[in-house]
């Protein structure tokens, strides 16, 4: 039951942020919503209810490392899409490994 709640809440919040990003202009400003805290809001709200605030705060601390990894990922995407002449969709998927390297690199050096 908890998984269904997570799925529905996550799907709704993330879709809502995506729609806001769709309707806003200019494009660069709308792009901010690509890094909206949508997964975080859905997850933290449910985590507070099930595991408590201390547990959720610990997740939020790791989220800082995830966000730095997101910054690295987005900058690599900008480079390859704008300057490297690679197609956007496959580039955005392929570069997810950059997020992984940075996120787990920061985890192993600072958070473990």
């Amino acid at each position, binding site marked *: 039951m908890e998984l269904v709640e997570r799925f529905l809440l996550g799907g709704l919040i993330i879709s809502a942020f995506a729609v806001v990003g769709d309707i806003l202009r200019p494009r660069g400003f709308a*792009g*901010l*919503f690509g890094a909206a805290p949508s997964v*975080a809001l859905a997850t933290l709200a449910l985590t507070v209810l099930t595991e408590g*605030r201390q547990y*959720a*705060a610990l997740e939020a601390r790791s*989220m800082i490392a995830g966000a730095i990894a997101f910054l690295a990922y987005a900058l690599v995407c900008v480079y390859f*899409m704008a300057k490297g002449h690679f197609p956007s969709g496959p580039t955005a998927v392929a570069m997810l490994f950059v997020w992984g390297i940075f996120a787990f690199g920061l985890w192993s050096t600072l958070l473990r």
Partner: protein
Amino acid sequence: MRIRINLASLKQTQWHDYLTRFLLGGAITVATGLIAKHFGPVIGGLFLAFPAIFPAGATLIDKHERDKKRRAGIPRTIRGRLAAALDARGAAMGSIALAAFGLFVWKLLPLHNAAVILAAALAGWLALATLIWRVRKLHVYSSVSR
């Protein structure tokens, strides 16, 4: 540059695009919960900032721009790719504010009401992301006019 709302862009998005984003969003939220349960909150927390739907959004933007050009009689264009790159640049600025969101929640959540802290963190994310975007715009304009 003024921020505006363009509702017409909603018509360009197909129902299956909305469904894809809903399913992806639901799946990543469930996956984040499961990862936290198996590996603990320190690893699980990393995934709160996972670029879950960014690839779907970039693909959609690219497709919309290419469709627009195709309708105008231009079959081959790089505009879609450049629009997706602009979106990624925005996401890069948003991710700096995302780190601040995490910092705010980490420090204040144990001390105050969770709903208030999450609402304040969201407002703070929007304010900081907008500020970063505005400062960058000013910097670009002042560089051009120099």
